[in-house]
């Protein structure tokens, strides 16, 4: 072994170590080029070493291996430089490869450039290798020189005006200079016998390694794998033992007097033990330098994943997230924003609750848009370089700047951005590392799944508990809540108020179901805001609300219910262009322990109180008391008595208006009112209904005010067009009556009096029992009077003929149950035929 034998061994070890290290890295084009270059260097250095050691099979073999490395060094080096600079020209590269391969093969068979050295033994310096250079060696040198020139040109061109690339290329350039200088030094006598060329190769490799590292092309910790440690410790052990075996053998045999075989065994055992020790020490040492931080991160991430997998509570998840980030990465502040119902991202958790106020990132915020399109995390400094930054508002920029936000981590599950984490700067202005970013990305992906599940669960839970339209508790959860409230308050008191909207069906008929829904929402809002945190509100039925009031007595519960009712009554006072019907409520109040002893009793008593109010005139709140069902009169009736007399003047004014235009319609309306009223009475309806039918009869043709007189009084048949105009009188009637909320209860009868039992009528084409009963009554009365009266376009019809038509049309135009009742009433003289 020559005296500087350790240099090629170290070089070889470095190349092999780097090669295996990069074998584990993600292979980009540049890394692949670097690995090819390392391989070429391994051939060069390894071949040279084996040749000098005269290993098997022969010096000549190892010489050619080494020469293969040397020949391919220029073109692989150029390949690396071109890939590093992303230069895609292939001509030079291919030329170099073909030329050097050809030259190598030529030299292999002819030795034209550099034949294998002759081995001279027995000199003072041991074995010597004598090379016999011939002039053609200049050719490959010249080509290599050209390639070197091209490389330097590429490097300088790349650096021009590009400071960043210049910085990255500086170590490569330094490596080339060192490699070149190393080879030049071979000619200086001072370095004679010293493998300066090999040593310069090692430096060059490390400079290239640094260049790749500064270009962030691999992760340093990737180099520390178990296999790398095995290889490194094995190589170090081999080198150590290769040098020390003769000494140790001598020492064992001579000083310790061991036999040959025992000495060999002892040395082998020592070799094995020291290799293991070396491996362990190396692994620990490297772990401490590079991997400890990563291990801590992995451990924290594992704990965090475990914690969030156990809960569906979003607050717990976000709290764990803040904890794990704080524990692993040193940051001053953390803010977590979660998407709300409007698609905006609001702060749900932070390390500084005082900063939270009303900050939100709008759905169209450029950062949100960016994170939706990309995965992982985003550095503010990088975002500032995107076009998205240009659309940020000054106030948004200011806010993020104020909080010194430096990093955003997306909580993204597939395509959905559930939320984002904003991290402020790190202490001492240190920047976020590659490992920090990887860790945050991992936390982000674990959290996003947990947040999504938690939000879905919360949404489903809320949906299951709440009424969709009003957002109040639904009937099912009402029973759960009242039970819970009872359990919690049975030692004190628990009141229940049930509020039922009066005449809500009519309201829907008047203004449509959509308006009805809006009214329900408004009522719910009023109740919710009045009850506030003092109790719970549920939509107990379609038009019924329940107020669960823990620790309320009867007096305060009734006051609250009356307060709600009076607010609801004012609801439609100023709404829209015309006054809408005022909504009133009938309410019942009951409380434990005063008038009920358990939940069931509480609910049924409150229900009973509502029923009593409904029966005694509606629009009131009643407190349940014993025997109340029988004493409806105790209701605190707020509603003034509705009667025909109250509205008589209005109805008279309206009918008088039509009289001025069309006298026939006026008398017809009076007749219809009479017939319809009597039919209602004959059919067994109560007085209130009879009054309504009469009022509807008087008003049913009021819309004819809007029809031209020439159509109204036209002798003969109407044209199709005129008939269409005539038909509009029904809608006109409604249009007039709906402006009079006090008379709106007649609308169902008026709107349906031209509907046919078989569904072929107008305006709504409804059929059978869907047509309100009063409308069906009005229809018969209207038609009968029309048949037997004289009209501008026809003479009067005999009553018998009219009966025949009624019977004929029973089940078609008319209600088949009402027709016989009406005919009997006329025949019996109960209904008298009107005169004129």
């Amino acid at each position, binding site marked *: 072994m020559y005296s500087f034998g350790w240099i090629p061994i170290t070089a070889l070890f470095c190349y092999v170590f780097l090669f295996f290290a990069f074998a584990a890295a993600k292979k980009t084009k540049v890394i692949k080029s670097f690995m090819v270059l390392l391989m070429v260097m391994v051939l060069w250095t390894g071949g040279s070493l084996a040749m000098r050691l005269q290993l098997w099979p022969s010096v000549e073999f190892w010489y050619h291996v080494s020469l293969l490395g040397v020949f391919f060094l220029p073109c692989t080096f150029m390949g690396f430089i071109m890939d590093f600079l992303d230069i895609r020209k292939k001509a030079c590269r291919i030329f170099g490869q073909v030329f050097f391969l050809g030259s190598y093969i030529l030299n292999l068979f002819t030795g034209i450039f550099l034949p294998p050295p002759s081995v001279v033994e027995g000199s003072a310096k041991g074995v010597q290798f004598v090379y016999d250079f011939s002039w053609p060696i200049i050719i490959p040198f010249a080509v290599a020189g050209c390639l070197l020139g091209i490389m330097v040109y590429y490097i300088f061109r790349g650096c*021009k*005006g*590009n*400071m*960043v*690339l210049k*910085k990255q290329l500086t170590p490569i350039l330094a490596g080339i200079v060192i490699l070149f200088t190393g080879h030049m030094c071979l000619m200086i006598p001072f370095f004679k016998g010293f493998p300066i060329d090999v040593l310069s190769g090692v430096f060059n490799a490390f400079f290239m390694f640094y260049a790749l590292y500064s270009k962030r092309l691999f992760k340093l910790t990737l180099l520390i794998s178990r296999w790398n440690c095995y290889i490194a410790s094995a190589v170090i052990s081999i080198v150590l033992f290769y040098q020390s075996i003769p000494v140790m053998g001598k020492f064992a045999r001579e000083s310790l007097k061991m036999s040959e075989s025992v000495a060999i065994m002892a040395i082998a055992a020592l070799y094995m033990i020291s290799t293991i020790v070396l491996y362990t020490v190396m692994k620990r040492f490297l772990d401490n330098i590079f991997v400890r931080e990563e291990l801590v991160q992995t451990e924290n991430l594992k704990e965090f994943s475990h914690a969030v997998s156990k809960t569906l509570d979003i607050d717990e998840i976000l709290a764990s997230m803040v904890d794990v980030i704080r524990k692993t990465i040193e940051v001053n502040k953390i803010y977590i924003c979660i998407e709300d119902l409007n698609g905006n991202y609001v702060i749900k958790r932070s390390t500084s609750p005082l900063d939270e106020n009303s900050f939100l990132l709008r759905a*169209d915020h*450029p950062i949100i848009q960016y994170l939706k399109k990309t995965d992982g995390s985003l550095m503010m400094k990088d975002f*500032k*370089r*995107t*076009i998205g930054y*240009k*659309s940020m*508002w*000054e*106030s948004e920029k200011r806010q993020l700047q104020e909080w010194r936000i430096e990093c955003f981590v997306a909580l993204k599950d597939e395509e959905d951005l559930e939320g984002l984490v904003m991290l402020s700067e790190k202490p001492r202005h240190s920047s976020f590392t590659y490992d920090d970013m990887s860790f945050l990305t991992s936390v982000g992906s674990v959290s996003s799944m947990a947040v999504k599940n938690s939000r879905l669960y919360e949404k489903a839970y809320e949906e299951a508990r709440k009424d969709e339209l009003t957002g109040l508790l639904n009937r099912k959860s009402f029973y759960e809540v009242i039970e819970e409230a009872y359990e919690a308050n049975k030692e004190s008191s628990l009141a229940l108020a049930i509020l039922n909207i009066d005449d809500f069906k009519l309201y829907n008929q008047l203004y449509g179901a959509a308006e009805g829904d809006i009214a329900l929402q408004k009522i719910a809002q009023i109740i919710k805001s009045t009850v506030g945190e003092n109790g719970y509100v549920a939509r107990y039925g379609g038009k019924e609300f329940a107020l669960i009031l823990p620790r309320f007595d009867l007096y305060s519960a009734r006051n609250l219910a009356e307060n709600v009712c009076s607010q609801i009554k004012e609801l439609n006072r100023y709404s829209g262009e015309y006054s809408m019907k005022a909504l009133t409520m009938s309410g019942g109040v009951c409380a434990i322990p005063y008038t009920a002893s358990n939940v069931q009793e509480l609910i049924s008593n409150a229900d009973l109180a509502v029923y009593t109010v409904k029966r005694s005139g509606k629009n009131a709140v009643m407190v349940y008391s014993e025997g109340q069902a029988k004493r409806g009169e105790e209701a605190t009736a707020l509603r003034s008595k509705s009667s025909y007399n109250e509205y008589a003047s209005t109805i008279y004014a309206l009918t008088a208006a039509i009289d001025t235009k069309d006298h026939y319609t006026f008398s017809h309306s009076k007749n219809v009112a009479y017939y319809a009223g009597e039919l209602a009475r004959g059919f067994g309806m109560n007085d209130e209904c009879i009054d309504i039918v009469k009022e509807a009869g008087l008003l049913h043709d009021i819309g004819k005010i809007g029809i031209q007189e020439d159509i109204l009084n036209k002798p003969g048949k109407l044209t199709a067009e005129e008939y269409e105009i005539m038909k509009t009188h029904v809608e006109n009637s409604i249009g007039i009556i709906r402006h009079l909320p006090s008379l709106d209860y007649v609308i169902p009868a008026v709107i349906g009096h031209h509907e046919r039992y078989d569904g072929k009528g107008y305006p709504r084409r409804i059929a059978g029992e869907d047509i309100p009963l009063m409308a069906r009554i009005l229809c018969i009365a209207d038609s009968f009077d029309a048949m037997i009266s004289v009209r501008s376009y026809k003479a009067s019809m005999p009553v018998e003929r009219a009966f025949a038509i009624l019977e004929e049309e029973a089940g078609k135009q008319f209600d088949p149950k009402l027709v016989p009742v009406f005919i009997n009433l006329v025949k019996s003289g109960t209904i008298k035929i009107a005169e004129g």
Partner: protein
Amino acid sequence: MRFQDKLREVSQSELWEEYCGFLELTVEEFMKIQKRLLREQMELWGKSGIGRRILGGRIPENIDEFRRMVPLTTYEDYADMLLQKEDSVLPAKPILWIQTTWEGGRHPIKVAPYTKSMLDTYKDNMMACFMLATSSQKGQFDLSPRDHMLYALAPLPYATGLLPVLLGEEMDVEFLPPVKEAEKMSFSERNKKGFKMGMGKGIEYFFGLGSVTYFVSRSLAAMQKSSSGKGGLSKLSSISPKMLLRLIRARGRCKEENRELMPKDLFQLKGFMCAGTDNKCYKDDLEKLWGIRPMEIFAGTEPTCIGTETWSRNGMYFFPDACFYEFIPEREMERNLADPLYVPHTLLMDEVSPGEKYELVITVLKGGAFARYRVGDVYRCEGIGNKEEGTRIPRFSYVDRIPTIIDIAGFTRITEHSISSAVKLSGLAIEEWFAQKEFNEENHPLLHIYVELKRGQMISSAVSVQVIRDHLSVYFKYVDQDYTDLKKILGMDPLKITILKTGTFQNYESKFGGLLRRINPPEYEVSRLLQEQFSVAPDGRY
């Protein structure tokens, strides 16, 4: 981080993305940025004193409402509030006020407030212009803090004076001569000093109004000629050896080619930018002189820096974050000129059509004072994107000022009011006139006034074309300082007079029921009027 630090820390592609990334936008993305920033501005402007006065206290809630509620405005709408420089009525606190002349206005100057945010945007867009000026392809540029810039622009408080201030914040580029010295110098002193310093240090960038850069470039040869005479050798001490070598080689080459020395013989510009109007008249000549085609940028006092050409020098693109742009189609603009009460409708960037001309309407973003402001410039949409450049947003070219303003070489803006004043002051017996902007055989702009003299006075006073020209020229200089500068700086006297036969205007009026517009009337009206004079007897009879 300053731009020059970014040059060291950030890759070229990232810098390109940061400053020139807007060129990659689709029209939809462009509009998204525009609309988002307008929403911010609507909020700021609507609540400001200016906004409250124009909107009468109403606040628009969306962009359609904003366009419906805010009328198209001119400086007249803001004058009484802005000329007082009253911060409290503005949407945001201004950092500085930029000034310009108010053509035909009731006050000699107009002022516009610039907020911090506007200046930041201005700076970024200006840096994008610089990058593009040095680029020959997408993603490539060549800027260095060691470079030198020759600039031919007015100092602060004029908008052009912002350039050295803003550029100085980002890069240590050396201005030739230094800004502080230049402010105290006359225009020609500044040029001489700039070139002298350039001979010693080199010139990498050149920026100025198109007309001024042309004049400066032409004067270089003259300066060289004079310096080669007496005292030539004494000045050699200020020339760097590199430049000396170039000068010697250039002289040899010029002698060989029998031509004058041109700037391109001495300097290798990295970037050449020009602004202002009439640049198209000078671009070819400037390219010949410097060996590099100037890149046009679009900036103004009220709108800030709003657009730039790219490496292809083939049409400009608007920056998405400087202003919200609306466009009045040419037909609508003409209709409005004929009937000032007519409210023209506007189009947005995603509604413009290639080949059409539009008057620009801007709403300055980032706390600016102007909303739906008629800048007075006309652009032509050259196309939607450009395959060569890989762009997808509309591409425009600058046409000229609106027809009622005659802008000569970016220096002076002549209106009906200024010509009327000059005519009145001159005391010349001019009965009627109209004026239009024309270009001479060298493609340089000129102001052509057609006059009809008062009948009967031609005998009693000398009123030749030369007399009228000289008279009006004198009074133009009197009423318009910029016109004086035109002569002083560019050596231009761009006035051309044509005397029309007496009775031409009267005849035209009686035949067509009205007179033609006095400034830049439509071409067909001009030819009808010119034909009319042949059918009029000198005494006015047919």
